[in-house]
């Protein structure tokens, strides 16, 4: 059986064209043996390639960038002037700081939902997701890579909001607090990243955009990212407490305030991650049984 030449360096970046002409071995030429137990590079290499590909696609999409960068930054600047600068939230946190932290969370929410959501739904409808499933990468790696890629694009959005907060909002924090806010906003984006992927799995391409946009504002507003929950009418406060965005915000404010991070908040967020993760697995199983996975 004739085989084309095989690249030796698997992880090497491809040089740009032109390529040297490949040599085709004569018929009957034995197939090269696979590298014996190539170790972690063999299994991790493809996933790194896939992850890099996904992040690259997101960062090249002007639509994605416009939404994820535009919304939190514009809202920060908008609401910054809308309230009196000296207003105090929850005792010790100035509004401009509270708003920056909230917009970090909102930016993470927007980026994570949009990275999955519509894009994933379209990919699944078009058959690309299915095409990847017939390559050697394991079935879970599609979902896994999507979530990791979402998390990776969340970080620059958070940093950008912080730069805007420091530059335009005059936010001054101690270095450990900056670090804490950044890491916390980043880590707490995980439920939203999983939610984005779940929406991509659950919802048709036509419905995905309105669902993502709706969730962005429902989670953002009712979670208290625009207006502190304590200023909301009673019934809305009840709803707020079951939303992940409220608990994200609560943790972030606690970091600013130098308070203890409440385990209850972590528990709720962890619960969302687990529940949504199981929902994705369930949806996948259902599709597999019906032969449309």
């Amino acid at each position: 059986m004739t085989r084309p030449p095989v690249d030796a360096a698997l992880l090497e970046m491809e040089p740009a064209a032109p390529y040297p002409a490949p040599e085709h071995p004569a018929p009957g030429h034995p197939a090269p043996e696979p590298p014996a137990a190539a170790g972690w590079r063999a299994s991790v290499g493809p996933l790194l390639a896939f992850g890099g590909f996904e992040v690259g696609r997101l960062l090249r999409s002007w639509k994605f960038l416009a939404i994820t960068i535009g919304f939190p930054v514009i809202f920060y600047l908008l609401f910054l002037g809308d309230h009196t600068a000296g207003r105090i939230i929850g005792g010790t946190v100035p509004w401009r700081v509270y708003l920056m932290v909230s917009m970090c969370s909102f930016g993470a929410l927007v980026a994570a939902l949009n990275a999955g959501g519509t894009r994933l739904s379209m990919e699944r409808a078009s058959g690309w997701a299915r095409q990847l499933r017939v390559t050697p990468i394991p079935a879970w790696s599609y979902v896994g890579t999507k979530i990791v890629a979402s998390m990776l694009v969340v970080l620059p959005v958070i940093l950008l909001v912080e730069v805007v907060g420091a530059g335009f909002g005059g936010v001054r924090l101690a270095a450990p607090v900056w670090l804490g806010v950044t890491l916390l906003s980043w880590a707490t984006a995980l439920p939203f990243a999983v939610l984005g992927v779940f929406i991509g799995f659950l919802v048709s391409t036509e419905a995905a955009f309105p669902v993502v946009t709706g969730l962005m504002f429902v989670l953002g507003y009712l979670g208290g990212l625009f207006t502190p929950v304590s200023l909301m009418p009673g019934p809305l406060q009840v709803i707020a407490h079951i939303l992940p965005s409220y608990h994200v915000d609560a943790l972030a404010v606690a970091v600013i305030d130098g308070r203890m991070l409440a385990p209850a908040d972590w528990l709720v967020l962890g619960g969302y991650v687990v529940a949504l993760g199981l929902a994705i697995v369930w949806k996948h199983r259902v599709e597999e049984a019906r032969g449309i996975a």
Partner: protein
Amino acid sequence: MAVCASGSPSQLSILLEVPSRPAPPVNPSPVALSFRDVTHRYGQRTALDRLDLVVRQGEVVALLGPNGAGKSTTISVLLGLIRPQEGRVEVLGSDPRRAVADGRVGAMLQSGSGVGLPPGVRVDQALRLVRRLYRRPAAFDWIVERADIGGLLRRRTDKLSGGQAQRVRFAISIAGDPEVVFLDEPTSAMDVESRHGFWRMMRAFGDEGRTVLVATHHLAEADQIADRVIVLNHGRVAADGPGATLKAAVATRRLRFVTDQADQQVLSELEGVTEVAICGTGVSIDSLDADATIRDLVGRGVRFRDLEITGAGLEQAFVALTGCGVARPPAEAKAGAEGGTR
């Protein structure tokens, strides 16, 4: 050469000349794909009905059959996307999922609403990604040459015509240097010209000793490239043999009639239908099961007159394809000419 067939007697009577299998070759090549007594149901609907099938390495096999015959399910099972409820399936001597995980299998599946390629990237980027998912990918230039996509590499995947996108998808399916390739309706988005080019490409691929299994509803073209044609109907093998023998045996009937309700969508969904051509009020339908088609036609309340049933030769079917008012499946009509853009 004998035509081997199994299935219900109503199908057999018209297919079978000699009911025995051909004598096995002296030195048969190893088995590439095997189905043993495989049954799979989606709820009440039986997609595969105790399917038995063996394909040897190096064979180029066309899998024919009307919509719903089980072609796509067969391919999904061979790729491990579906685990059949009963029976045993092996690909290259192992579990289908093992063969996929080892990168020994490539596939071009039916694309859904889009082109089946990741939007927002260039063709070369998509191809380089897929190569890197395999431990032993084929050389980049070899793939490009094989799939004839040299001129498309810098194009964005969402700016390709239907035929161009199919060539890129073919490139992706062979990126892992597979021993076995499955193609599900690969030419469905192509015009007649690009289809011929595509079949030649696949033929060349098979000539290297690789196993190729193509699901298609284009009888004439399948006949031209395949060593062997397998006709599926109702999830079973209705006929199996070399293309030339099947040509004489395949029970295609042509139905012609006149109707004021010539709806392409409805007509192509009728049971047994493989081709639909509409010229004004005149309709010409090719069917693998004329009786069932007519029952279905009546059942759906389509009023027709001047019904005429003839045996349809494959050449006739091909003339109909290129002739007046050929109504293609929606995907094809949308794709338009090869050179054009969407």
